[in-house]
């Protein structure tokens, strides 16, 4: 059997993220040990040098985040991986990646929190932190994975989005997805579609490093290629130099948001199951989407018209894909392993008569299909 599918492998979610990163062209990883993300570091310490890349274990997560930004500025696709406590430490330099528009991917394998919390239990408590964790107004992309195959494919996609839009992309996994082993058939690197940042092709003296264009994404020169320019965490003008002029600040910040909002149709992704005729839906993401999937299949077998909307992109919140579901259904269920971080977003965009039902579990245990069933039966009746 394995001879027929040479790429068929039994791997855990964390390993699939490693494979996805390498396939996407990531050649620099900096990290700090933390449960339940450590396997990503361990595996990349072997695989990175093999691929001609670099792995480094830094002194903390602040440094890890700084190092991947530095590597990206030098022209190398880069990633770090952590869990809640480390993710908190990364917020400072994540903001730098936002303002200086440095492509990079940050994996947060969520565990119970706050603080040291529940190191070996799953949770989804970092959703809002992923969106708003670093200070100031900033655009960011947050994606959620729910299976081992997802962990591969969405990691590749995260790099592609990050490179295309010059924005940090956060991948939210959780302890269940990270450590669940599933058989997957991964494509060869050559068969993976990879996007690279656009380098300037103009002579260095013509290069205006932060000049907007129709996409809002400036071309990006790597250090050492002859384009000597300035990169700073201060708000800067189109040349990259600090500015305090209101019109330049306004233009800069607007462009940061515009470049992402123009890309909404590409960036916002969901998966739908049985939604065509559904009058009740479950909106879920991450490992909870797996339980929701099972619950929806069970409900369908009982003749209930229930569908699943799985959010792959959490932020920018896929309003234009959620709204039609809210208009179509009389009720939606939003199960989460937190106190209701995405249900709050669903409520925010809900302008119809649709009832938004929360189901929250905060005891460090995965939500089961069985516990969703009573809600679904109740909503469908």
């Amino acid at each position, binding site marked *: 059997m394995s001879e027929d599918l040479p790429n068929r492998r039994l791997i855990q979610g964390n390993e699939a993220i490693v494979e996805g990163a390498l396939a996407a*062209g*990531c*050649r*620099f990883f*900096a990290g700090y040990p933390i449960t339940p993300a450590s396997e990503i570091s361990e595996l990349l310490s*072997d695989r990175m*040098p*093999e*691929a*001609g*890349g*670099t792995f*480094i274990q*830094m*002194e*903390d997560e*602040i*440094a*890890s*985040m*700084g*190092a*991947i*930004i*530095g*590597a*990206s*500025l*030098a*022209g*190398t*696709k*880069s990633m770090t991986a952590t869990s809640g406590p480390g993710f908190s430490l990364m917020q*400072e*330099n994540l903001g*730098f990646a936002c303002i200086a528009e440095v492509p990079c991917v940050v994996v947060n394998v969520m565990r119970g929190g706050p603080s040291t919390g529940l190191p070996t239990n799953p949770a989804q408590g970092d959703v809002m932190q992923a969106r708003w964790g670093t200070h100031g107004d900033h655009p960011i992309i947050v994606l959620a994975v729910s299976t081992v195959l997802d962990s591969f494919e969405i990691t590749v996609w995260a790099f592609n989005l990050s490179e295309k839009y010059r924005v940090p992309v956060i991948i939210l996994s959780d302890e269940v997805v990270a450590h669940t082993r599933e058989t997957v058939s991964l494509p060869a690197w050559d068969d993976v579609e990879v996007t690279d940042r656009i380098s300037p092709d103009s002579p260095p003296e013509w290069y205006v490093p932060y000049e907007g264009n129709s996409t809002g994404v400036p071309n990006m020169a*790597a*250090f*050492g*290629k*002859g384009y*000597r*320019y*300035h*990169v*700073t*965490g*201060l708000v800067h003008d189109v*040349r990259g*130099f*600090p500015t305090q002029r209101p019109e330049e600040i306004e233009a800069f910040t607007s462009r940061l948001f515009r470049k992402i909002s123009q890309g909404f149709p590409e960036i916002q992704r969901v998966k739908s199951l049985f939604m065509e005729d559904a009058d009740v839906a479950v909106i879920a993401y991450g490992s909870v989407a797996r339980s929701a999937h099972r619950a929806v299949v069970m409900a369908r077998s009982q003749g209930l018209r229930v569908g699943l909307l799985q959010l792959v992109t959490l932020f920018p919140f896929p309003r234009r894909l959620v709204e039609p579901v809210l208009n179509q259904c009389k009720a939606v269920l939003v199960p989460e392993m937190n106190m209701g971080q995405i249900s709050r977003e669903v409520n925010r965009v809900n302008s119809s008569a649709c009832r938004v039902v929360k189901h929250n579990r905060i005891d460090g245990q995965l939500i089961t299909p069985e516990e969703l069933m009573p809600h679904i039966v109740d909503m469908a009746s």
Partner: protein
Amino acid sequence: MAKEVTKLVHEYLRHDKKFPHVWCPGCGNGIILGALIRAIDGLGLEKDEIVLASGIGCSGRLPVYADFNTLHTTHGRCLAFATGVKLANPTLNVITVMGDGDATAIGGNHFIHAARRNLDLTAIIINNQIYGMTGGQFSPTTPYGSHASTASYGHIEHAFSISELAVTAGASFVARATVYHAILIEDMIKKSILNGGFGVVEVISNCHTQYGRRNRMEEPVAMIQWMKEHAVTVEKARNMSPEELQDKFTVGVLADVKKPVYTEEYEKIRERAGAPKIGERSA
């Protein structure tokens, strides 16, 4: 001579874009920038191969004036960013500029670990013994008993000795100079770059605005005079008694050793892992 030096420095400055600078009249930072440029020019390095990175504070503003690949990072994190730059492209010559608070308070962890790893880059630390830009709060190098905006009753903490800390943490090259010893700064930066490992060049500088005014040295000249009178060369210090050295500090080379360099060591890891040769690698 002076004219020649000025002409040389102008070749390396973004003089048409970024001047006047933000520093106070009489600040030592300009002397250090000049020495850095002369060192780079003296070694015949290309502008394109230099990455000049900094953190936050008055020192953090130094790279923007120079025509290199320049990177103004977050407070204390400059060595972390520089680590990524250097490892992603080891052919780049990475130089960092930090202040005393930047390098040894908020960035202290990154500093000792960069030294321990022996990452091949040069860290210039401008030690003016105070947080200048934020208004004169005490830093890890503010002397015991002196005054700061957060120590108006007199400072009760004890100062780090940055260079000695760097030696202990494992830096390959460590030297100290002052802005009075401008030629020495240039020489130490050259030696640090030539050493090839993690090099630290601590430069004692004057912040008369925030430190001097609170500590009876209102004028830059008074502070530079203090440096002249209290600095003793490493060579001379060897023959001095502890009593004679009581209120003095040493200038010159404190460590200059050859150790395995991080990027070279990592290249061996790649070979052991069976990586394709440089040039045949994808991505």
